[in-house]
Every structure is written in C-alpha cells, then in structure tokens.
C-alpha cells in the first residue's frame, strides 16, 4: 500500500504546480497568424450549400467570386474577374478573368470553372442560389472564351453585381473527380476546391478552424501567414482573450462588452452602422392582427423612444429599408408614439375595447429583445391588450415561422442583408414567395410583390429609387411591422491589425487576406 506523509504530499503538490505554471510558449517568429473569436461554428465547407456568416467568412478567404464587395458604402471590386461589361438592356454580362488567378493545386482558374460552378450552384439550389432564383438557371452562365464568361439573365436584375460576391468558383476538375452521387456535396462538406488566399489547415469542429496562406498567392496584399477562426462561446472569455492579445478580432460583442473595453489599451472598438435591421413583424395572416386598424393602433401606441433607450448604440428606423442603403427614403416618417391616434385606430378596429391577449417571442439569451418585449407589454396596456412573452431558441423560432397558425402575434427578428442592395431586404423580408421562412413568415401584399419584382428588374437607377419609395410607402401604410432599430455593428480588434476597412455588408465575414498584423 502506498504511504504518503504530509511532507511528501506537499513536495508533490509543489512540483505539479511548478510544472503547470512554468511553460514558455514556443516562439512564433516568422508567423503572422491572426486569430478571430466568434460564437459561430462552420459545419459545412461547401460554398454552394452552406449559409450563415461563419461559412461565408470561410468562403471569402478560401474561394474567390467573380466580383468582390469592399468599402463603405459597399462597392463591387474585381475578384476572379478583372473587368466586366453589361449590355444596355441589363440582360447580358461579360466577365474577363484574371490570368494570374489559380486554384490551390496550382492550376489556373478558367472560364470553364466559372461555368461549372454556377451550373452546380443552380442545380443544387441550396446556399446562395436563392439570390438569383428566377434570374439565372443552369444554362445561363457560359464560357465564351478561355478566360471570358458570359452571363445571360432571364430577366434584368439590377443587384446582380451585389449578389455575385457570394457565389464562389470551385475547381471543376477536382469536384468532378470527387462528384460521387451527390454532385460532390459529401466531398466539399469537408474539403476545399478553391482559389482563395488560404487553404484549410487544422479542423476541429466546434473548436477551431485554421487557414494557412498558400504559397505564391496570386492575391496581393497583407502579411498574414495564417488565420484561426476560434469558437469562443462565452463573451467574457472573448473579451479577456482580446485584452491579452490572444485574439485579434472578437466578433459577437454586446453593448455591455463594448462598454467594458472602452479605453482599454491595445483594443480598438468597431461600432458602425450597417444594414442589420430589427423589426417586430405582426401576424397579418392569422389572429387579431389581421385587422389593419388594430395594427395601426399598435404602431401608434408603441414606445419607440423606450426601445431606442434600451438598445444601446443604435438608431431608430422609420422605413423598412435600412438607413443609408440605396433607395432608402429619408422623408419617410413612419410611426411615432401617439396615444390619441392609437385609441382612434383601436376604435375603428373590430376590437375597440381591447380586453384580449396577444403573444410575442424573443430569442433566448438576447437581453435587448427581452426588454423590447417588456416595452411592448407596457405599450399595449393603453389599448387594454395583454401580452404573453415567450423566450424561444432559434430552432423553435424557425419552426414557428413556417405557418400563420403557429406564428406568434409579434415576431421579433434581426435581419442581416447578404448583399448591399435594397432588394435583399425587400425581397427576403416582404415578398410573399418567402412566406413560411423565418425572414417573412406571413406578410403578403400583391402590390408590394409587384413593386419588389419591378425594382429588381429595373436597371435605371432613378426609376429604381421611385419604385423603392413606393414600396416603403405601401409597407408603412400596411403597418405590417413595428419598424424598429438599426443597432450599430459591434466588435473589437487589436490595434496591431492594419488595413482593415469596415464594410456595412456582412462586416463579420471580412476578407482577411488584405490585412496585416504587427
């Protein structure tokens, strides 16, 4: 039997403590590895299948699109295509590819790869394919030369250059060789076939994804030799890691975190307006809120100032389109709290005495959304309406949105545009073809549908502006939403990160290859 006296015990404990606290980190000389802390995982590496901001970040750095999006306000920039032209009727786009572009295996990117990639994307009809639904089909994109691609649209689509940054080109020979029976989905789920500045290194699902800079990278810019996307679920941990310099970017920060790192040495706060909207959608297809006068009563009863005060760094929206985006109508007044008007509209509705209960949901863990629910509760009291507040996880929210009968009366939702065009917000959040989806569960108005369709097909800028102006007027008149707020995008970075430029479209999916550290 092992015996252990007090002295031996203490010596052993001291030894273990010393062993645990004495290591020196290996030198990282010569390595410029950027670390990004995020709460979001990357479950799928297929650029024609995966959605979500984390996969999009991966694709922007391991693949290339024809056209990129940069700067603020966002503008198109050359990607694989060094130049492009557009026919006067907006139906034909011609792209000339960059001869220096090559895939990770060293083979050049050709027009055939682009043709293959778009055909695959549209054939699978997953991932970003919805952005060009009805605009392109499998035969729309053709290689008309070794390095020339021609895109023939089924109808004009003004935001085409805005959606192309999310459509990535794969190595056709590699994917075709690993096609299997599912068009290469099983292969690309966990493998890369890109031309991006980085290739995949270590992969630890749920923990980290390491990208390694390719040798002889044709992208010019930045000094990064690698990037690590680190999943950090606890906000305080991410903040401490940023403080200690263990991460260079901490995404997914809340207002409290930004306050805590204010004036912290070595840390730069990024708090910029972007196009991520928050609205409270009303169930216009089922229940009391089918009554437009009741919706207007609620819209005039709501305490918008309270909502803004509870939001932290944000601004109120008056229009369904984000402030500052092309087509936004700055003269749109929207609704303001006006109790006499609220009561006036209640009296016109079928529920003039109130006396019933409505339901509202918010996302579990989002304190701001919970506060907004409480503001709604208080606002409805003047109308003698009660409110049942429900905290829901994302899976339950998505499931709940699938039918008017299951949807709550007030549906709280953030919406981040995938591309820098009002069509994204308008189409996703207000077109009836999106009913049953989480972005637009129930709202349907044929006039709004036509305005959206006409606007996306219109290539004349002035006419598009007029169409979106009318769109905003009709949606506001419908009182389909409590049009809420634009929160500032909040994240932080170390001050040794250089050449970072904020873009208001998907800012948390930044391209890192132009960046440097040190």
């Amino acid at each position, binding site marked *: *039997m092992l*015996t*252990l*006296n*007090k002295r031996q015990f203490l010596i052993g*404990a001291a030894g*273990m403590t010393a*062993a*645990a*606290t*004495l*290591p020196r*980190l*290996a030198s*990282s000389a010569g*390595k410029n*590895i950027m*670390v990004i802390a995020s709460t979001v*995982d990357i*479950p*799928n590496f297929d650029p024609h299948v*995966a*959605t*979500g901001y984390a996969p999009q970040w991966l694709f922007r750095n391991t693949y290339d699109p024809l056209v990129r999006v940069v700067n603020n306000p966002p503008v198109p920039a050359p990607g694989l295509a060094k130049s492009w032209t557009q026919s006067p009727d907006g139906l034909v786009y011609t792209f000339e590819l960059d001869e220096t572009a090559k895939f990770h295996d060293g083979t050049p990117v050709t027009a055939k790869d682009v043709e293959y990639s778009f055909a695959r994307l549209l054939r699978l*009809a*997953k*991932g970003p394919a919805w952005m060009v639904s009805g605009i392109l089909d499998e035969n729309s994109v053709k290689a008309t030369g070794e390095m020339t691609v021609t895109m023939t649209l089924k109808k004009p689509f003004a935001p085409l250059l805005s959606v192309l940054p999310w459509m990535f080109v794969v190595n056709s020979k590699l994917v075709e060789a690993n096609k299997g029976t599912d068009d290469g989905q099983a292969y690309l*789920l*966990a493998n890369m076939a890109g031309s991006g500045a980085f290739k995949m290194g*270590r992969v*630890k*699902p*749920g*923990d*980290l994804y390491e990208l390694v800079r390719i040798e002889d990278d044709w992208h010019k810019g930045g000094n990064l030799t*690698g990037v*690590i996307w*680190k*999943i*950090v*679920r*606890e906000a*305080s*941990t991410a903040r*401490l*890691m940023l*403080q*200690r310099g*263990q991460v260079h970017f901490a995404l997914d920060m809340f207002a409290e975190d930004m306050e805590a790192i204010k004036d912290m040495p070595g840390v730069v706060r990024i708090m910029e307006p972007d196009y991520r909207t928050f609205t409270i959608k009303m169930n216009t297809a089922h229940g009391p809120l089918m009554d437009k006068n009741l919706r207007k009563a609620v819209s005039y009863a709501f305490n918008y100032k309270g909502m803004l005060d509870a939001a932290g760094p944000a601004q109120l929206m008056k229009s369904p389109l984000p402030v500052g985006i092309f087509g936004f109508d700055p003269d749109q007044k929207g609704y303001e709290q006006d109790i006499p008007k609220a009561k006036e509209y209640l009296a016109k509705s079928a529920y003039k005495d109130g006396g019933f209960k409505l339901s509202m949901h918010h996302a579990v863990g989002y304190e701001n959304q919970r506060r907004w629910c409480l503001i709604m509760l208080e606002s409805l009291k003047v109308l003698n309406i009660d409110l049942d507040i429900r905290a829901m*996880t*994302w*899976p*339950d929210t*998505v*499931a709940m949105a*699938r039918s008017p009968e299951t949807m709550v009366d007030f549906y709280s939702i953030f919406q981040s545009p995938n591309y820098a065009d009002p069509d994204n917000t308008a189409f996703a959040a207000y077109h009836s073809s999106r009913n*049953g*989806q*989480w*972005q637009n569960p129930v709202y349907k108005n044929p006039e709004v549908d036509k305005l959206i369709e006409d606007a996306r097909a219109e290539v004349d800028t002035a006419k598009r502006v007029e169409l979106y102006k009318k769109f905003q007027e009709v949606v506001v008149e419908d009182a389909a939403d409590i049009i809420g707020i634009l929160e500032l995008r909040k994240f932080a970075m170390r001050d040794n990160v250089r050449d970072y430029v904020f873009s208001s479209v998907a800012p948390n999916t930044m391209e890192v290859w132009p960046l440097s550290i040190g």
Partner: protein
Amino acid sequence: MLLYILRRLILLLPVLFGLTLLLFIVARILPGDPVGLAAGPNATPELIAQMRSELGMDLPLPVQYWNYLTGLVSGDWGMSVFTRRPVVADIMEYLPATIELVFASLLIAVVIGIPLGLLTAVHKNGALDYITRTVALGGIAMPRFFLGLLLQMAFAAWLDILPLSGRYPLIESPPDHVTGLYTLDALIAGDWYAFQVALSHLALPAIAMALSPLATIMRMMRASTIEVLQQDYVMTERALGLSNHLILFKYVLKNAMTSTLTVIGLYVSWLLGGTVLVETVFDWPGLGLYATQAILTQDFMPVIGVTLVIAIIYLITMLIVDLLYGVFNPKVRYA
C-alpha cells in the same frame, strides 16, 4: 469473479436498450424542426423534404428506431444533422477532451480530498478541520461556472500565470494524437514542453471542476475515518503498540474507504454530465459543449449518442467500484 463481471456486463444491455428507447421517444416528440434548421433559412420546402428523406427522418418511427438500434450494434450511431458527420466520429473527436478534464478533476479531488479527510479526522476540531470545513461548504455551494470565471480573472487576467482558455495555444499544434488526451500524448511522445503546456491549460478548468467533489470526498472520508477510529479493533491495535502511522494507513484507511469509493464512483458520472458550463467558460472542446450544441439545434442523434456514452462509462465505473470494494474489504467477494 469473472462470472460476476460477465453477468454485470450482460446486464448493461437491457439498461442501454431502455435508455435508447426513452431518449428516442423524447427526441421525436419534442417540437421543432432540426432538418429545416440544418437546411438553412433560405431552403425551399422541397429541399427540406429531400434532406429529411436523406436522413431517413421521413420513415415511420418504429422503422427509424429499428434502423437506429441495428446501426448502434454495427457502429453506426447516426448522423449529426448539424455537423453532417457520423455521431461516432464526433464523439471520438470530443470525448478525449472531456475524459482528460474529468480524470484530472477526479485526480485532484481524490489526491487532495482523501488525505485531507484523514488528516481532519485525526485532528478533529483543530484549525485545519475548521478551515477545510469552510472551504468544503464553499466548494459545494459555489456554481462551477462562477468559480471558473473567478479563476480566469485571478490567474489568467490579473496574475497572468496560467492560460485563459482552450486545451493548447491556438497557434501551435498539439502533441501527435495517440489517446487524444494531450497530457498523456505528450508523455508518450516524451515531449516535456508539450506536457507542461497541456498541463497549464488543464489546470484551471480541472480545479473548477474538482472543488465540489473534493469537498464531498474530503467530508465523506472524514466522517468514515472518525467512525472507524472509534472501533474496538483500533483501540486494540493501539494497545498492542502499533504506530499511529501504521494504524491509520494500513487498517483505518482501508475500512474507511468503502463509502468514499461509492462517492467517487458517483462523481464520475456527475463530472461527465456536468462539464458543459466549465467547458463553455474555458472553451474546452469536450462532450459537454458538443451535447449543448446538439440540444440547442435539436440534433437528436448526438444527444442520444452522448447520453449512451455517459451511461456506459457510468455503468462500467460502478462495476469497477464494486470490484474495488473487494480489494478494500476482504469480506466482500463476488461469485
């Protein structure tokens, strides 16, 4: 003895069968749409239906369960809807991290708890007894995640002597995979630097996990030892002139260990199932995090898989504990 072990192993099967049935039913009757979620926010109803068919989730429930059971036996524990990987592969990825954390926590709790329990029993109502009693109360009462945050603040943020999170520095590659336990793999490779690094990362989460079992083991050991010290045979041994050291470690310890052994065995499953909060605070990529992600995305196969793994480990642990009774108490023998 061998027959006893075999019998206990065979009895695992009906327990696991009942567990899978219960979990399967609960997972299927819960509201939500994991396939719709995995398909993405822009998926069409046709796409979701196709995915549902690919995953076999459009079949009748009894058929789904039968397919699952036969798959279990053949090593196919289903696919994770979220990661699109086999559940077995995911569990093999995450399990070593949790095993390492649990083992380290238990080691701390046992190595410190048992001797302290002995000492405080021998020096009952002394200064050490009062101090450890207070620490024990705090250890049991304090939530692990809160303790974890405190440890991070103290040792990582303020003193900067231990890492903040993770199993290994982000920009370095861990030791070559043998067991998946970085400390053990480093020792196997003879890489002392890697062992130090892995141990330094393990320290804070292991301490956060260890405090509660340490407190319980210490108090249980103390109580058992006090009881045994009052037995007649101990008095006889003292009368015979045996040294206190010999009495304590050869006779008292063995007899006092049985109830503590039970507590240690129970804590294995408690630790296994309770790592999620500490893993979240310390970014420890273990089974707890994997299970949490699965629950939040209503990914049922991983939830069932993780529960089965914990159940198997728990049942085997209790078998080992039962066998160890025989080591400490010769009167206990299994036929």
